[in-house]
C-alpha cells in the first residue's frame, strides 16, 4: 500500500518543468538521489523514439501492402473501413496484459500493441487514396501499355501520396503519444515521468508531457518533409 501514498508536492509550473528537463531535481521518496535532468530525459526520449519507429515499421509492413492491393483492385472497401474504425477502439492496456500471458512483456509485446494503433489509419488512408485516383488517368496508363504493377507504381501511388501520408502521420502521432504507457510493460520511456507523480512530482509529469508533445511535433515535421521529397515535381507545381 506504499504505492497509494501521495507525496505532497507543489503544483506544476512551466518553469519547474523546464528546470526538471535541464537539471536533476530533489525527490522526497528516493532517499536523497536526484531525479530527472537532461541525461535522463534524453535517454528516455531515445527509447520512446526507438519504440515508435519499430511500431511504425510494423504498421507499415502490415497495412501498406494490404491497402495498396485492395485499393488497386477496388475491392474490400468494407474490410478496410471496418479495420480502420474498429482498430481505433482497442484498449491498449488490456491488449498488453492479454499478450503478456502469451509472449510476456517487453519490446515485442509493445511493438505489436502499438502497431495495432498504427495499422488502421494507414490501411484506411492507403485504400482510399489509391481507390479514389481518377479512373481516366488509370485507363490512360493502361492504354499506353503499362502493366498493373506499373499503373500502381507510376500513377496511383504518386497521386495518392498526400492521402497515404496523412494516414502515416496520424498513425505516428497515435503511436508516439501512446508509447508513454511502455513503462507498464517493461520498457522505460518518457511515460515514466508521467506515470510516477510520486517520484518525479508534478513538474516531472508536466516535463514528460512537454517532451512527448515536442517529439510528436518533430516527427510530424520530419514526415511532412519526407512527403515533400516523395511527391513528384509535376504534382507540386500543379498544386502550387
Amino acid at each position, binding site marked *: *500500500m*506504499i*504505492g*497509494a*501514498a*501521495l*507525496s*505532497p508536492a507543489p503544483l506544476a509550473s512551466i518553469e519547474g518543468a523546464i528546470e526538471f528537463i535541464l537539471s536533476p531535481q530533489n*525527490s*522526497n*521518496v*528516493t*532517499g*536523497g*538521489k536526484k*531525479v530527472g535532468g537532461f541525461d535522463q530525459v534524453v535517454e528516455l526520449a531515445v527509447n520512446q523514439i526507438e519504440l515508435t519507429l519499430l511500431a511504425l515499421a510494423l504498421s507499415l509492413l502490415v497495412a501498406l501492402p494490404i491497402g495498396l492491393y485492395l485499393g488497386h483492385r477496388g475491392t474490400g472497401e468494407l474490410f478496410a473501413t471496418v479495420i480502420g474504425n474498429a482498430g481505433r477502439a482497442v484498449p491498449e*492496456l488490456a491488449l*498488453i*496484459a492479454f499478450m*503478456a*500471458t502469451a509472449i*510476456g*512483456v*517487453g519490446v515485442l509485446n509493445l511493438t505489436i500493441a502499438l502497431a495495432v494503433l498504427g495499422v488502421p489509419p494507414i490501411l484506411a488512408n492507403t485504400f482510399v487514396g489509391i481507390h479514389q485516383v481518377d479512373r481516366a488517368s488509370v485507363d490512360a496508363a493502361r492504354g499506353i501499355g503499362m502493366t498493373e504493377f506499373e499503373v500502381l507504381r507510376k500513377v496511383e501511388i504518386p497521386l495518392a501520396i498526400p492521402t497515404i501520408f496523412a494516414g502515416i502521420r496520424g498513425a505516428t502521432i497515435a503511436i508516439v503519444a501512446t508509447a508513454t504507457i511502455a*513503462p*507498464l*510493460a*517493461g*520498457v*522505460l520511456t518518457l*511515460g*515514466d515521468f508521467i*506515470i*510516477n507523480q*510520486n*517520484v518525479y512530482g508534478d513538474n516531472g509529469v508536466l516535463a514528460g508531457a512537454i517532451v512527448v508533445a515536442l517529439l510528436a511535433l518533430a516527427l510530424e515535421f520530419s514526415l511532412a518533409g519526407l512527403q515533400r521529397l516523395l511527391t513528384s515535381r509535376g504534382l507540386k507545381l500543379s498544386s502550387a
Partner: protein
Amino acid sequence: MAVAMLSALALTLGVAACGSSDDDTGTTAGNEGGGAIVSNPDNAKVSLKIGSKNFPEQEILGEVYAQALQAAGYKVKTDLNLGSETVALQTLKSGQISGYPEYASTALTSFFGLEPEDVPADAQGAYEKAKAEFEKEDLTAFPPTPFSSANAVGTLTKTAEKYGLETISDLEGQSEKMTLYGSPECRQRIDCLAGLEKYYGLKFKSFKPVDIGLRYTVLEKGQADLSIVFTTDPQLAAEKDKFVILEDDQEVFPAGNVIFVTKKSVAEKAGPDFEKTIVQVQEGLTLPVMQELDARVELEKQTPKEAAAAYLESAGYTG
C-alpha cells in the same frame, strides 16, 4: 480446484483462530482480550460510523471493526467508500465518520511528510511515531495489527529452492544473474529498488518496470526471477505452494501495519469498550489470515461483509 482452495482457506482461518485463542489464554487474563466479544448494554446509546478506503483489504478491515463493535453493543454504521487517505482523513476530522483503519507507513509519509527512508520498519516504532503525530491533531491511534501490508520481494517457490533463498540477504552474490520486475515507481523509490541497492548492496542483472497487475504474470511466464509484490496479496494465500516472499531481514520496507484512527473526543464519548474491542478483534489478523481474507474477496468473490463475518466467527469473536 475451487473447492480445494476454499477448504484450504477454511483450514487456515481455523488454525489462525486456534492460535489466537491460545495466545489469549496464555498471555492475558480476564477481560483484556480473547474469546467472544461481550455485548455491553451501556454502549447502546453510542452511535459510531466506521469508514474505510474503497479497496478490498480496507473494506474487509472496515467490516471487521464495524461488526466487532456491533457485537460489543454499539450502534454501528459504515462508510467504506472513501477515495483516498486524504479524503478519509478529512472525513474523519469533519466528524462524518468516527474512525477508519490506516496503514502506519501511509500515515507517516502522506500525512506527516516523513520520507519513506525515515519510516520505521518495526510495527511498534512506526505506531508510536504515528500516534504522537496524530495526537497533535487531536486524533487518537489505537495499537497496530499483527500483519503489515508492505512491498515484498516475491519469487517462485522453485526459484527460491534452487538458489536457497529465504531472506533478501540470501540474494547476495546471486542477484547479478537475476531480473527483477516491479511497478514503474519502484525503480527510484528508497522503499523499493533504490533501498534494495542501498541497504542490501544488491545489484540486479536488470530491473524492468511493469504494471502492478502483471506482478505475478511475469513470475509465471518465467520472465522475472524476482518480482515486487505486496505482503497481503491474495495470490500468496491461494497459491501458497507456488509463490513465496523473501524476508526483509534488513528492514528496508516501511511497516504497513494497520492502525485504527479516531478523534479523541469520539474515543472519550464511546468509552473503554471502543479501543478494547478493536484491539481484541485485530489480534487474529496475522499475515496469513489477512491474505486469506483478501483471497476470499478478490478471488472467491465473497463480499467484504461475508469475509469479515466468517473471520469473526471462526476466530471465536462472535457466534
